[in-house]
């Protein structure tokens, strides 16, 4: 083995893959470098709930041996990855951030977990998240919050704060997230990383612990658009275990990312959604400023910028907070102590179920179960769930109309840069407003991406740029995203993530 002089944790996944293929580095070296980095910084960051050092090294050794033996390997073979704890992993603890699943070892792999294993990617561990993916800050994890590597006093977004922070802290080059209302894109936005929510059905949900089945979608997270595309192609594709999985090939997102990097957007029409642009106020000044600068860059590459209006988006947040809790109240019923997870033993099975759920679930989970149970109750169903579904249809129509005028839609990903831990924990409504720009995509099932557009001048914290495309057109996200990224990194002299302040390294 050669003496490593480069800090491999700073490299992109694409670079790591090339270096592995060229024999410049081994998978064991890559995995070890990341395990060392995790050991050094994850104390305060707390991106991981569980580390599987031995499992990751074992995969790495096998990949290295196969490569030495001349076996043909998948592109990302040997590149380490972190998996959000919402995905079940056979033999590895899986909690979805909840105490109610503490100690549960799944007897099976999620389809995406299986695909990651088939891609021969060493799994470093499971990343932290808001309990059952309910939250925008990862403060609702049953195992303590994750902190933003840009400022440890701030939130890394949520629910996938662990997956985003792991990237921003260079603890993993790639991670997997799940996005129900923005849980991939909003954390990407506040940590200066890239996250994609694919078209609904584009990635199998089998083995992803369900929050709201009609909104949930798994997706790739990385530090660059190309890395994210490489992981997207590993994860995507039809799965007969998921009835809602699309029976079509994975979009050619890697090719789109490579094409976009050439920075030619001639003939591309980009729509600015008035209702999501911050034009009506309420967005942080630096967020709006970076967004407008990005638009200028896109225009500079030949894109035409038009304004579109989606009037129903005004009701999207309200509809979302009826549909999500309704589905969640049913999805979370199975956590009843009978077959797995926590059991608080009482005199009868009914009391045991009650006590287990009272102790095992956190406040936000209970809040949403109560909301959803109420919304689905006889006599309220039409007024709440029924109305929310109608709004959902209107949101879809607004998107249809908007995409009739342009190829992609864009907006800031979040209204503000990351807020301070604890700042909104007692104000659920303020917390929910974080997702105002990301939620409509989930209601419509369309794909969306967030990528860094710079830091806000007033606080030096990351600002995210969101791109939305019509269903099945995930490749457009990558083309436009890669173009903007290429333009911005040329100016920055490298990815924005490199500008994050150095974390204190533990002995």
């Amino acid at each position, binding site marked *: 083995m050669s003496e490593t002089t480069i800090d491999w944790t700073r490299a992109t996944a694409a670079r790591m893959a090339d270096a592995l293929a060229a024999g410049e580095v081994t998978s064991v070296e890559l995995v070890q470098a990341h395990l060392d980095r995790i050991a050094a910084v994850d104390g305060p960051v707390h991106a991981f709930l569980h580390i599987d050092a031995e499992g990751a090294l074992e995969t790495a050794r096998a990949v290295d041996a196969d490569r030495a033996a001349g076996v043909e390997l998948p592109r990302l073979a040997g590149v380490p990855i972190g998996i959000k704890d919402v995905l079940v992993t056979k033999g590895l603890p899986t909690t979805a951030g909840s105490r109610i699943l503490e100690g549960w070892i799944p007897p099976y792999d999620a389809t995406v977990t299986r695909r990651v294993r088939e891609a021969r990617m060493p799994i470093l561990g499971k990343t932290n998240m808001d309990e059952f993916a309910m939250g925008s800050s990862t403060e609702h994890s049953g195992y303590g919050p994750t902190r933003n590597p840009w400022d440890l006093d701030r939130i890394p977004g949520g629910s996938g704060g662990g997956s985003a922070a792991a990237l921003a802290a260079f603890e993993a080059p790639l991670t997997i997230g799940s996005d129900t209302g923005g849980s991939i894109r909003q954390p990407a936005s506040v940590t200066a990383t890239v996250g994609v929510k694919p078209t609904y059905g584009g990635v199998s949900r089998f083995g992803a612990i369900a929050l709201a089945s009609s909104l949930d979608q798994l997706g790739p997270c990385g530090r660059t658009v190309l890395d994210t595309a490489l992981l997207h192609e590993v994860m995507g594709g039809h799965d007969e275990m998921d009835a*809602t999985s699309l029976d079509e090939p994975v979009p050619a997102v890697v090719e789109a990312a490579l094409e976009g990097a050439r920075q030619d957007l001639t003939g591309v029409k980009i729509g600015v959604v008035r209702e999501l642009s911050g034009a009506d106020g309420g967005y942080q000044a630096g967020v709006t400023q970076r967004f407008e600068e990005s638009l200028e860059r896109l225009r500079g590459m030949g894109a035409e910028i038009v304004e579109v209006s989606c009037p129903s988006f005004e009701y999207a947040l309200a509809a979302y907070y009826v549909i999500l809790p309704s589905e969640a109240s049913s999805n979370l019923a199975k956590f009843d102590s009978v077959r797995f997870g926590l059991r608080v033993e009482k005199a009868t099975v009914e009391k045991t179920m009650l006590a287990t759920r009272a102790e095992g679930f956190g406040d936000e989970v209970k809040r949403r179960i109560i909301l959803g149970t109420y919304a689905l109750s006889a006599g309220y169903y039409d007024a709440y769930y029924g109305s929310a579904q109608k709004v959902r249809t209107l949101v879809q129509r607004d998107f249809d109309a908007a995409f009739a005028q342009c190829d992609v839609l864009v907006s800031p990903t979040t209204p503000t840069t990351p807020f301070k831990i604890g700042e909104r924990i007692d104000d659920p409504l303020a917390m929910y407003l974080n997702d105002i720009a990301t939620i409509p995509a989930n209601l419509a099932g369309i794909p969306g991406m967030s990528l860094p557009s710079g830091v806000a001048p007033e606080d030096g914290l990351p600002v995210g740029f969101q791109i939305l495309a019509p269903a099945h057109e995930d490749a457009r996200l990558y083309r436009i995203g890669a173009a903007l990224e290429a333009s911005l990194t040329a100016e920055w002299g490298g990815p924005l993530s490199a500008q994050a302040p150095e974390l204190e390294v533990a002995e």
Partner: protein
Amino acid sequence: MTTMTYEQAMEDFDPVFGIEVHVELNTKTKMFCGCANEFGAEPNTQVCPVCLGLPGAMPVTNEKAVESAIRLGLALGCSIRESSRFARKNYFYPDLAKDYQISQYDEPTCYEGSLDVVLDDGTVVTIGIERAHMEEDAGKNTHVGGTGGIQGADYSLVDYNRGGVPLVEIVTKPITGMGARTAEVARAYVATIRDIVRALGISDGRMEQGSVRADVNLSLRPKAVAGESQDDVPFGKRSETKNVNSLRAIERAVHFEAARQAMLLLSGEHVVQETRHWHEDTSSTTPGRSKEEAEDYRYFPEPDLLPVEPSREWVEELRSTIPEHPAKMRARLREEWGFSDLEMRDVVAADALVLIAATVQAGTSAQAARKWWMGELSRVANDREVALIELPVTPDAVAELQGLIDEGRINDKLARQALEGVLAGEGSPAEVVASRGLEVVSDDSALEKAVDDALAAQPDVLAKIQDGKVQAAGAIVGAVMKATRGQADAGRVREIILQRAGVEG
């Protein structure tokens, strides 16, 4: 009044009833996963993440179950919805792995049908079918200690093998105007459903194993007074008697509930709308939970599944596979087979119709098939306390056995011995005949000697025969059969006797 009979209740009241029948489909796998759908395996051996409701698991609809449900719907004269949805029925119970049941709610696949039911005296009653929808079964709880219920049990065991087994629930419209024949109609309706699912081959239709289960809803309303139409009299409050699992019990449950409700109403009390449990041992019902405090199931469309959207072509293709109505088939077969009404009724009551039909199909005459299934085999089934279909003998084997008789290779007595061997698992009839050495003695020289011996022993009989009283030969035949321990071909023996006596047969 302290007691009341069903008949007395019918003097003052007009019953309104409805029946929900759950049919367990006999698909190879469960409704939403690939686990085996088989009765009687070791507890929790036919389970997977999906039917155990493990975190992350998702259902996928069993196409074969959809096909069975549509065929059943078509046999019940239902319309088939172009697009129907599954819904979640939410309630907490340990046998329900996900704590919700995937069922169909506002959009059942099959709706608005009707079914003709033929009563014993030939009366045809048309029952309106509200819907037939698909759902998954729950697991099975066993409560140990206490009174056998979940409350107060020392502990409870759950077997999830049944969890996720595909069911079709058939719901009738309210059935009125049957008066005192209500119980008979209820029974005949369930029997007809059972016959239909068997004829379709979509369920084994075994009520004793719970593969066909019925809930009986019943209410009483006063008989219309003179000048008033019975239709104008409003329905009373109903009870829903759960899990009535035999045809006899259906009739008894109707009797009990009608009499119980009549007693209450006549003594000025009212009937509580509630579910009731059926007790087979006492032929009575006791209250379950009251509908007034009924749970709210919070139904909503199942987001993990796509709608069921059978193409018109497929539905028409399935329609062509629907067998004729069991009652019509019975009438036709009775005609073809030349059975009397009574014979046919006995055959149906013994669940032997399909077995006889299959035996006839295999080449046996209808009378011979009936003789075996209603005679010897019914006796054996009765001794063993099992259904005919559970005997380890197939219609093909019965046909083979009869074939051996028809060929003269064995006689009736030997055939019964051969059958005994078949039932003991010794092989096919021909194999048993060979291994037990049962074949009739057809070697003429051996028979001739036996005949000569018998004639010599009874010279008076020989004289009678020679006098033209050929029926006297019977005594010689009997003696020869005895001497050959039954293994002689009686017809051949008779021929030899007549030859020896010098008379033509």
